[in-house]
């Protein structure tokens, strides 16, 4: 008999991928066990300074999630823990774990850092003898660029925020004497007797997100890493840029701690070579980012910053524009793979030889060289593969099903770099997709293992005197580096009704939340102001803290002293400090008048609407149906399948036709899915949990009700105007070529000695469409290989700007080169030209390596056309009320961490409508959207927006002005009372009606006129 399924999941790895899955699943009613081998979670993202292409502070967007995980009642964290054994089957696994000793009692430790300060190891600066027993320990988090004590906190925002002892470095463990930390610890948390623990947990499913290892460049002797002090890795440079890094955010070089005036980056170190024939996908962009940030940090001091590269792979949303911006800001890109670095032993400067125009060797001297190291599979990949019985591919990464890209096998899912090198958003997408797979597998046992919500009774504050607390955040050096936070803190204390003020290193960290709660209780605060970064990302976090302290979360006000003061007035420290005071005074003034708010609960309609019947839409529909909910699919064409119908074969040999037919069959035969073909969206009303949508099916209008929307409306192939397309039959697009290869037998027979010339970036990366269409290189190489496969004697030229075969697609590029496909790079300013002479096509192109204009006779000219947004994209975005980019692709809530969400709750995004992408990427994004939608659908109620507008019926004259203005159709007219009435669910709190009401009858909760006037008065010292 089969055992009962278990409503819990094991997540291996606490990086951003594991964290996303944990939060998704815990929110959907699955108990989460997160296993991390390091002392804290956060992964590599915690080590990054900024993220591309938005230059968001990495820690600032990560920290709220770290905190959420730390405080989530249904996420149990095992750090310093390894998996020993896995038994069982999908739905029911028994996993044996081993927890290594931390030597600190996690229950007692408060993370105060007293132990860290007294540890004598931290005070050793240098060791005289090589074999000394007591040595300063290298800080792993700063990748050996700094030292740390033997007892330490992994990094300031780490979760759990607890100390850990490094046995190898600890004087007590090495010599038997010391125990200084034990004496210093106020909580009595140090436990030298700590032993490893072995225990079992039962889970229904497993998600593997163990991340990656970075390539160790010391094996490439010619680069001198480990020999020359000023050759560092890109991750080390990331730490140098970070305010929590080894030099406090100052860009210095290791040998003499001087500011480098000339920095070089070398790309593809450990990537794109015969031993690792794949592209690490992220290095081009992180190098670009690090270059931009270094310039920002150093200003005029940094004279030169060069990036040595082969192809710039800026293939995702906003990347091409970011790359262009870097060039404008003076980052210099040099197209050459440089294999060796020489050091001037006197100055410790480094010399790089490279090939300039006309293949002429030149050399340049630098103060610092950064190696852009590639991504390797995790060190314990073989161990993981054996224990979980999953396959690894030729490069040692986890092998997954191409058409189900997070599935290693039934019950075991993979996200992040473990299955292929990838960027943060793709990792997050995969993590949510893995969540969706788990939700499907465990749909019947959802909610069985979670703790009931802890209800902290709310303190009634009516009649209490105002007691305001102000917390001023250092934000590392982001704020404290500019603003005198101590002065600001003291100033805040002088404001009326402020009974407490203090500073916090990172107000968003877990220990800070505990501290705030403590103070609220201790000082009986009834209003709280946090002066920190921005309410945009961090307000919910602090509101939650208030809630946990028994205070209504709306008695909170944010003072943005980072965004409004320290960042914008970086070079005017005095004035910035004064401005911070103003901003805080304003916040205090407002919070004085804030009232407790109580959002209403709205029941959730557990049905989904999927817009688009292409592969993304169909996958999403099937996923949601498998999770157990009903789905409506709306497709504008007569047939399902979208763009995939035009695809006959894939570069990796998989059969897209078979997949599509099976998918359509599964969707069509699923009783939970209802399909509307030739249907168009008419109107969308309502909000998350409760949408009412009108669609026009042929000529009939239908109304459907549903709780979520998945937008998978796709995109289209660009129809070129360039290169004589349409005038000659010999000129066609890649998709048309594929059609010919697949269906035109005459064409195939006649391939011998025919010459194909392919031109890349047609309709992409130009002024009109300044983005990379991501898939055209892969498409061109796929077709070129197909031609060569059919007839080796056919010649194929690919004229390109950069070949962007990221990830494992690189091997097809290699294969194409091996098969004799000729690749010629052209400069964007010297595009190829096509001429027809005597019925023959001639393509002219300037070869930059040879410095020669070339002429090729082409039998066929194939244009690699880009992907453009659908014509109706704008209309859909207006109907559903979500933003759209200049290029016509839909704009997600956050490029890094919320890649399938819209800013509008309840609407999710998948497929080409988001940005050009490959088939497997569309599938996984559709699964992710389903996973995210599953969170809402799994709930019976969702809470409405609290900051809504209310009508004072006494004052309302019934003039109707507001009704016509409301963008959300939330206001109706009460014929009986002759007043306006606002629907609480639909109101988004935008304030349009408030401003427009001639009789001042509408007020917005906690944004009342009296509050705003008070704020203005305070900020102007009136």
């Amino acid at each position: 008999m089969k055992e009962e399924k278990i409503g819990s999941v094991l997540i291996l790895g606490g990086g951003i991928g594991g964290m996303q899955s944990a939060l998704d699943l815990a929110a959907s009613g699955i108990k989460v066990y997160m296993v991390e081998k390091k002392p804290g979670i956060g992964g590599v993202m915690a080590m990054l300074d900024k993220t591309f292409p938005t230059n968001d502070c990495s820690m600032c967007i990560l920290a709220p999630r770290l905190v959420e995980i730390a405080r989530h009642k249904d996420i149990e964290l095992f750090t310093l823990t390894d998996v020993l054994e896995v038994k069982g089957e999908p739905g029911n696994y028994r996993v044996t774990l081993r927890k290594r000793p931390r030597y600190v009692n996690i229950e007692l430790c408060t993370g105060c850092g007293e132990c860290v300060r007294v540890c004598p190891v931290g005070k050793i600066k240098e060791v005289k003898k090589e074999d000394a027993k007591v040595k300063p320990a290298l800080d792993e988090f700063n990748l050996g660029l700094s030292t740390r004590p033997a007892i330490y906190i992994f990094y300031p925002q780490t979760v759990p925020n607890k100390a850990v002892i490094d046995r190898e470095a600890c004087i007590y463990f090495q010599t038997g004497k010391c125990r200084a930390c034990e004496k210093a610890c106020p909580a009595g948390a140090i436990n030298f007797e700590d032993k490893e623990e072995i225990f079992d947990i039962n889970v229904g499913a497993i998600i593997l997100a163990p991340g990656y290892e970075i390539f160790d460049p010391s094996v490439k002797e010619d680069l001198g890493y480990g020999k020359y002090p000023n050759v560092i890795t890109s991750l080390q440079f990331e730490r140098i840029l970070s305010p929590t890094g080894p030099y406090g955010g100052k860009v210095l070089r290791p040998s003499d701690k001087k500011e480098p005036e000339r920095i070089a980056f070398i790309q593809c170190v450990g990537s794109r070579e015969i031993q690792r024939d794949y592209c690490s996908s992220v290095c081009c962009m992180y190098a670009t980012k690090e270059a931009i940030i270094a310039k920002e940090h150093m200003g005029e001091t940094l004279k030169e910053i060069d990036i040595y590269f082969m192809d710039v792979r800026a293939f995702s949303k906003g990347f091409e524009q970011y790359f262009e911006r870097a060039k404008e800001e003076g980052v210099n890109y040099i197209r050459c793979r440089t294999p060796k670095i020489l050091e001037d032993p006197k100055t410790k400067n480094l010399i790089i030889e490279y090939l300039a125009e006309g293949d002429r060797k030149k050399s340049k001297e630098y103060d610092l060289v950064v190696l852009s190291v590639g991504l390797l599979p995790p060190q314990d990949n073989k161990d993981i593969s054996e224990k979980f019985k999953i396959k690894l591919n030729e490069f040692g990464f986890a092998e997954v099903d191409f058409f189900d890209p997070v599935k290693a096998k039934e019950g075991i899912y993979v996200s992040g770099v473990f299955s292929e090198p990838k960027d943060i958003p793709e990792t997050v997408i995969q993590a949510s997709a893995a969540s969706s797979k788990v939700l499907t597998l465990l749909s019947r046992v959802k909610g069985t293992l979670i703790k009931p919500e802890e209800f902290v009774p709310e303190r009634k504050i009516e009649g209490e005197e105002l007691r305001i607390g102000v917390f001023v955040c250092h934000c590392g050096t982001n704020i404290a580096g500019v603003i005198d936070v101590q002065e600001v803190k003291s100033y805040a204390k002088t404001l009326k009704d402020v009974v407490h003020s203090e500073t916090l290193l990172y107000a968003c960290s877990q220990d800070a939340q505990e501290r705030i709660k403590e103070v609220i209780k201790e000082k009986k605060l009834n209003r709280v102001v946090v002066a920190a970064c921005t309410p945009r990302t961090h307000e919910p976090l602090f509101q939650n803290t208030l809630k946990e302290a028994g205070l209504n979360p709306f008695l909170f006000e944010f003072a943005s002293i980072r965004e409004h003061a320290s960042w914008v007035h970086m070079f005017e420290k005095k004035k910035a400090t004064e401005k911070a005071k103003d901003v805080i005074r304003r916040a205090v003034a407002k919070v004085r008048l804030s009232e407790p708010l109580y959002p209403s609960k709205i029941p959730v309609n557990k049905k989904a609407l999927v817009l688009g019947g292409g592969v993304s839409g169909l996958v999403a529909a099937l996923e949601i149906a498998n999770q157990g909910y009903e789905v409506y699919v709306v497709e504008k064409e007569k047939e399902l399948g979208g763009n995939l119908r035009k695809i006959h074969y894939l570069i990796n040999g998989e059969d897209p036709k078979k997949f599509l037919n099976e998918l359509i069959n599964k969707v069509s035969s699923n009783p939970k899915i209802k399909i509307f073909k030739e249907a168009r969206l008419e109107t969308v009303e309502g909000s998350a949990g409760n949408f009412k949508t009108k669609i026009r099916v042929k000529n009939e209008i239908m109304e459907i009700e549903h709780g979520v929307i998945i937008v998978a409306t796709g995109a289209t192939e660009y129809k070129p105007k360039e290169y004589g397309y349409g005038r000659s039959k010999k000129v066609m697009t890649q998709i048309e070529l594929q059609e010919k290869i697949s269906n035109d037998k005459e064409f195939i027979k006649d391939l011998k000695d025919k010459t194909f010339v392919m031109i890349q970036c047609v309709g992409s990366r130009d002024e009109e469409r300044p983005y990379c269409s991501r898939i055209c290189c892969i498409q061109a190489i796929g077709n070129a290989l197909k031609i060569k496969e059919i007839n080796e004697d056919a010649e194929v030229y690919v004229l390109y700007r950069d070949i962007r075969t990221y990830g494992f697609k690189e091997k097809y590029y290699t294969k194409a080169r091996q098969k004799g496909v000729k690749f010629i790079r052209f400069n964007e300013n010297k595009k190829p030209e096509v001429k027809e002479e005597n019925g023959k096509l001639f393509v002219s192109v300037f070869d930059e390596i040879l410095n020669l204009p070339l002429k090729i006779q082409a039998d066929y000219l194939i244009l690699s056309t880009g992907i453009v947004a659908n014509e109706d994209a704008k209309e859909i975005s207006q109907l559903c009320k979500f933003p759209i980019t200049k290029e016509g692709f839909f704009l997600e809530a956050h490029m890094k961490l919320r890649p399938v969400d819209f800013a509008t709750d309840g609407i999710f995004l998948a497929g080409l409508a988001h940005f050009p992408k490959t088939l497997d990427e569309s599938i996984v994004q559709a699964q992710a959207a389903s996973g995210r939608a599953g969170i809402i659908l799994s709930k019976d109620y969702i809470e409405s927006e609290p900051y809504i507008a209310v009508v004072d019926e006494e004052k309302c004259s019934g003039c109707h002005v507001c009704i016509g203005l409301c963008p959300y159709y939330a206001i109706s007219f009460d014929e009986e009372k002759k007043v306006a009435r606002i629907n609480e669910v639909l109101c988004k709190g935008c304030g349009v009606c408030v401003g427009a009401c001639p009789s001042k009858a509408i007020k917005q909760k906690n944004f009342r006129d009296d509050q705003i006037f008070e704020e203005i008065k305070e900020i102007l010292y009136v």
Partner: protein
Amino acid sequence: MEVFSNPKILREIKRYGKFDVKGCYNCGTCTIMCNISKEFAPFPRRPFQYALLGLEKNLLGSLEAFLCHDCGDCSIACPREAEPRLSMATLRRYLISKYDVTKVASKILSSKLVGILSYFIVFILSLVLIFLYHKLKIGLSASDFFGTSMPIEHTLPEGGFRILYGYALFIILFPILILLIGVIRMGYFSFKGEKIPFYYGFVALYEIIINLFTQKEMIKCKRTENKIRYIFHLGMAIGCLLMLIIVLFLLRWKIYTNLTQRILGYLATIGMLFGSLYIIIERIRKKGGEIYKESEWQDFPLPILIFLISLSGILVHIFRNLNLEMLSHYTNALHVAFVTSFLLIELPFGKLAHLIYRPFALYFYKIKEIYYKKMEVKS
């Protein structure tokens, strides 16, 4: 002027050996790692690109292939293990064939069977000629040639000297003529369209002599195995040249005393014998570093012939001194046959052609370099 890309050229090049670019993505690593790549004639990447894209005329005019000294620094560093060294060697064979107006080199270098057969046929033919010469002119039982420098001369009948000398002159002058035409063609392709004044040719003339006798370029190749290789290669090359001078001039006109002749002869023999033996062993052993890791059949006739020539030569000398008349006679016949095969096939049509093409390539390059530098200064 636009250059026409003919994709079929690559197929032709591949007939001369490995030109397996193994996914080369034009990264430039090979050229950077090469210590002897020239400012105005960078390699291996540039000639590679010519070959890949089938730019025949540019390829014929490119000196790069002969500027390369085959050390393999490029192959070690190549991130795609595309073995640029082997491809450069193939390019040299292609060019030797292209510069040869008789088209014989093309047949020999592109086919192992034709190649090896032609060495054998010439070898057998020359044995037959020697046999016929003895049979018809002087009789097979020659005797008493002890103490003379050349065993055959001693018994020369009337006119015999002229026949012999004519034979020697033919096997020497034929390859020189072929190679001279080749060099002229090389220069023609290389200088076509350039406006370099004629006198630059005199300014750079020293380059040929220096390179012919010092092979100084080879010392610049980075890895240590190249230094050992340099010594043996130089020993072999100087040995050959020295022996050529001894045989052609010294023995005939007795400019030097016997002793000097002997010492010079011994030195040349040592250079040839050990140089060639070292190369043969390393090529078979495949462990002497990148240069010897992989060889093609065209690499073998040269060291094998030199080894056989020097071995047979010294054996004749020894046998003669030991009064082993007939044995030295027969050995000498073999010696002459080896030399004939060496001079008629290997030198004009085989790998040895680089002996002439390389110094001339360096010389032509020098002319260009001086000119280009001057032009750059001007502009």
